[in-house]
C-alpha cells in the first residue's frame, strides 16, 4: 500500500492550475481536405528524430526477448501489408507518415496498433 502513503500520495492539490505556460501543448491543424498521404507531413517530418528514438526503444525491448534484427525484419514483412486492410483514410495516412519520416511502414503500423499489442 505504499501508494497510499506520503511521499507517494499527497493532500488534494489546489494549486496546480494554471500549470506553467511552457507545459501547454501546441496545436496542429489537420486538413482533411488534403490527401491522406500528405495531411500529417507537416507534423511528423520535423519530429522524425524523436519518432525514430521512440520506435528504437520499442525495438530494443523486443530485442531483449528475441533477435532484434530478425524480429524487426519479420515485423516489417508481416505488418506492412496490413496497411491496406485498414479502413480509409488510414492506409494513405500511415504510408504518408512512413514516406515523410523514412520510418519503414511496418514500424509505423506497429506504433499505430500498439494499443492492441500492449493489451497482451
Amino acid at each position: 500500500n505504499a501508494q497510499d502513503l506520503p511521499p507517494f500520495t499527497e493532500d488534494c492539490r489546489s494549486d496546480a492550475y494554471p500549470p506553467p505556460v511552457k507545459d501547454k501543448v501546441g496545436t496542429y491543424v489537420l486538413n482533411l481536405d488534403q490527401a491522406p498521404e500528405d495531411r500529417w507531413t507537416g507534423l511528423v517530418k520535423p519530429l522524425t528524430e524523436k519518432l525514430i528514438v521512440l520506435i528504437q526503444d520499442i525495438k530494443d525491448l523486443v530485442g531483449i526477448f528475441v533477435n532484434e534484427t530478425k524480429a524487426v525484419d519479420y515485423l516489417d514483412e508481416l505488418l506492412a501489408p496490413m496497411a491496406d486492410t485498414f479502413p480509409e483514410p488510414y492506409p494513405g495516412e500511415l504510408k504518408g507518415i512512413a514516406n515523410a519520416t523514412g520510418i519503414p511502414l511496418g514500424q509505423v503500423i506497429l506504433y499505430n496498433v500498439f494499443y492492441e499489442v500492449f493489451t497482451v
Partner: protein
Amino acid sequence: CTSLVVEDKTGDLFHARNLDFGLFLGWDAKNSTWALTERLRPLIINVDYQQGGKTVGKGVHFAGYVGMITGMKPGVLSLSMNERFQAEGGFIGIIEWVLGQRDGQWMGFVLRDAVVKATDFNSTLQYLTSVDLLAPGYIILGGNSTGQGAIITRSIGTKADDVKMLNPSNGTWYLVETNYDNWESPPFFDNRRAPATKCMNTMTQANVGLKGIFNVLSTKPVRNLLTTYTALMHVRSGTLDTYLQYCPQPCFPW
C-alpha cells in the same frame, strides 16, 4: 490512465484525463523514470481536424499515431479511452485480423471516426457500446447536456460488459475511471480511484471547473511516473487544453 467526466450545479459538463503509458517498457535507472514515457512526452500535440476550413473535431495525439484516444467534437461530445487489462486482450484480435477475419476494428481508428462524425451523445453512446472491437477498453464519453456522461466497459467483439451513467439527480455528479472495472474494487497495488474520488469530494460540485479537475488529476498518485499529459475538455465552449505532466521523485511508479 485516469478519466473524469463531471457535471457542475448548472448542468454544464467537463471531461478530463491523465494519459499514463510506458509501464515496464524500459526503466531509466539514471533518471528513475520509465524510458518510453519520457520518449512519448515530446511527441504530444493537439490536433484540430478541419474540413472546408471548419473544425470538425479535436484530438490529443502522440505524433505519428493517427488514431484518437482523447478528443472531442466541439459542442457535441468529448471522449477518452483508458486501457482495460483482460485475458482476452488485443492479441486475439490481431491474430484474427492477420488470419483474415476483419469484422473487428482498431480502437484508435474507431474512436477517431466516432468523434469526427458524431452528431449527438446518445447515438455515439449506442455505437461505441456495440461496435466490433479488436481490443478491450474503457470508453469515457461526455456530452453537452445534463446527465450526458458514461463509462462504457468494452470487451473485444461486440460486447459491452457495462455502461455506467452520470446521474446528478441522485448524487452521481461525476464518474471516475482508471484501469479497472468500476463495479469491482481496484487492486490494492494500484488504487488511483480512491484518491481521485477523495479529491473530487473535497472539491465538491460547487467548485467544478477546469481548475478543480486539473488539481484532482495533478494530485499524486493520480499523477504518477507514467503520466504524460493532462487534457481538459469543455464541450459547450469547444475547449481542449492539454498540458504536459511530470512527476519528480519521490513519485509512485504507476
